[in-house]
């Protein structure tokens, strides 16, 4: 019954319990005493409770009138630090940043884009096999004359806009070469190299062959190749030196000139020296012939014949050298590289589901890499932002305590 006394006092009992308590109270004076004590306690608690002065109603009503900014946290200094960190991390992650995406990632992204755009493939100009071959030839040429003739007259390599007159070859004969052989015509070995982008490889190839023949020359060598992107052709033609410039001019008209170079070597002095040595050797040979006629001893005869044989070999070698140089000066060599680019108008056919799947995978990979890179950048930037955040936290904590 005691348990129900407090509830009875608070009027929290149903009628039946209430009646039971009232009956017990009438019968038991101690119970009544307890009830009085409970009531006294309640009154005492209320009497001794803290007096509270109501304040702040106007301020609350005013605050309710203003539209509460749900994004107040944006103005917090933490948000500012976080935003700055994210911006820096973004620039470090993105390809625009100096830290930027590594070349591999950039290539991957490009691949992703190319897959999506695969139906419209465009092939960037690249060094063709013909280019490479021509370049290696030119480099070989640059070494050979220096080694053999020992006289480097000069070379000139320029793009199509700089191409010009024969003087532009940069041929500067040694100052003593002309004076050594007065009246001799100048002997110049000319070499040219031209790379052309043509519309039709077959017709251009044939045109180069015809051009060589028309200019008093011939095709020394030629080959053709093909890749998935381009067709390549390369020819080495010999033309009359006098028609070198004319031939080069005609070649330029065959297509779009990608690169062009030429070189010249003045061998006048070399040939003049060889001819002077030849003349001297012939004179010596003639003298040995006279001695041979007068010799009587077999040993003397054999000895003189040996000398004559040696000098004859030298004479023939020098004559061949002179002849070769004259021949090279007469017929210039031009290396012609041809390239025809194949236009691929459509990508390999795939159904839409495969394409969508590939695109989705590529996007997922790209985004994942970007996010991971972004997260790594934020972690790496921790030495910068973490002290600021800790400082702010401490500062705010102290401010709150105050």
């Amino acid at each position, binding site marked *: 019954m*005691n*348990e129900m*006394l*407090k*509830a009875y006092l*608070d009027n*929290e009992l149903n009628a039946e319990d209430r009646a039971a308590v009232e009956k017990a109270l009438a019968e038991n004076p101690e119970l009544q005493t*307890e009830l*009085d*004590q*409970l009531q*006294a*306690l*309640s*009154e*005492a*608690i*209320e*009497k*001794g*409770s*803290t*007096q*509270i*002065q*109501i*304040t*702040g*109603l106007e*301020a*609350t*009503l005013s*605050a*309710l*009138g203003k539209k*509460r900014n749900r994004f107040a946290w944006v103005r917090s200094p933490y948000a500012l630090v976080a935003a700055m960190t994210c911006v820096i991390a973004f620039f470090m992650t993105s390809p625009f940043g100096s830290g930027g995406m590594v070349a591999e990632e950039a290539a991957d992204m490009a691949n992703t884009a190319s897959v999506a755009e695969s139906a419209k493939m465009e092939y960037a100009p690249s060094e063709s096999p013909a280019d490479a071959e021509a370049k290696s030839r030119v480099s070989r040429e640059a070494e050979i004359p220096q080694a053999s003739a020992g006289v480097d007259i000069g070379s000139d390599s320029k793009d199509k806009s700089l191409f010009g007159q024969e003087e532009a070859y940069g041929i500067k004969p040694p100052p003593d070469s002309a004076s050594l052989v007065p009246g001799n015509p100048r002997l110049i070995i000319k070499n040219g190299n031209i790379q052309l982008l043509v519309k039709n490889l077959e017709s251009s190839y044939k045109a180069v062959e015809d051009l060589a023949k028309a200019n008093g020359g011939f095709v020394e060598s030629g080959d053709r190749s093909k890749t998935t992107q381009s067709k390549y052709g390369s020819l080495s033609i010999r033309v009359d030196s006098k028609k070198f410039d004319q031939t080069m001019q005609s070649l330029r008209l065959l297509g779009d000139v990608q690169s062009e170079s030429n070189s010249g070597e003045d061998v006048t002095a070399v040939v003049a020296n060889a001819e002077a040595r030849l003349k001297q050797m012939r004179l010596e040979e003639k003298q040995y012939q006279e001695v041979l006629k007068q010799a009587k001893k077999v040993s003397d005869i054999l000895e003189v014949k040996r000398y004559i044989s040696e000098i004859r070999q030298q004479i023939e070698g020098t004559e061949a050298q002179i002849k070769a140089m004259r021949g090279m000066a007469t017929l210039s060599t031009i290396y012609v590289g041809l390239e025809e680019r194949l236009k691929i108008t459509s990508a390999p056919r795939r159904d839409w589901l495969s394409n969508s799947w590939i695109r989705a995978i590529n996007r997922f990979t790209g985004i994942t890499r970007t996010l991971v890179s972004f997260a790594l950048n934020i972690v790496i930037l921790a030495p910068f932002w973490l002290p600021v955040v800790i400082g702010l936290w401490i500062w705010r904590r102290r401010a709150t305590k105050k």
Partner: protein
Amino acid sequence: MNSLTDKAQSGDPEALRKLVCEHYSQVFKFCARRVGSQAAADVTQEVFLTMQQSIKRYENRSSFSTWLLGIAQNHCRNHSRKQKKSWLQLQNWFAPSQPFEHKAIASVVLQEALGKLSDDHREVVVLHELDGMTYTEIASLLSIPEGTVKSRLHHAFQSLRTHVNGGIA
């Protein structure tokens, strides 16, 4: 009453204002007994701002007053936790300005007896005796059965009575 909450729920600013005025005193006192008079104004303002934001979620399952005091209870608990203060500190709700004796109960003895109550008992005592909540409202606020409220109050008062009787003796 219901019509006022309905209007406030539909976004009527005047109804909201009236609702605040009507409950401000009760909520302020409720908060003051839990976080102290100094912080009560700020906490009460937070309570009403929360009420403004979430009044559309009020579903009449309990009285509006109980629902509002539930919000106040959460705010007060968060505040106490942040301030690292114990819950329902005695000086916040029982501090007679002058010592008194009421029907043979000395205020000092009662204060001592109240200070020895457990947290659960102290909570129901304050909710019922000072905040004026019924057993049903207390049960709804604390999410406990009504019988538990009755039992806690009985034991709390028995404890107080024993202590006070001992003090007198």
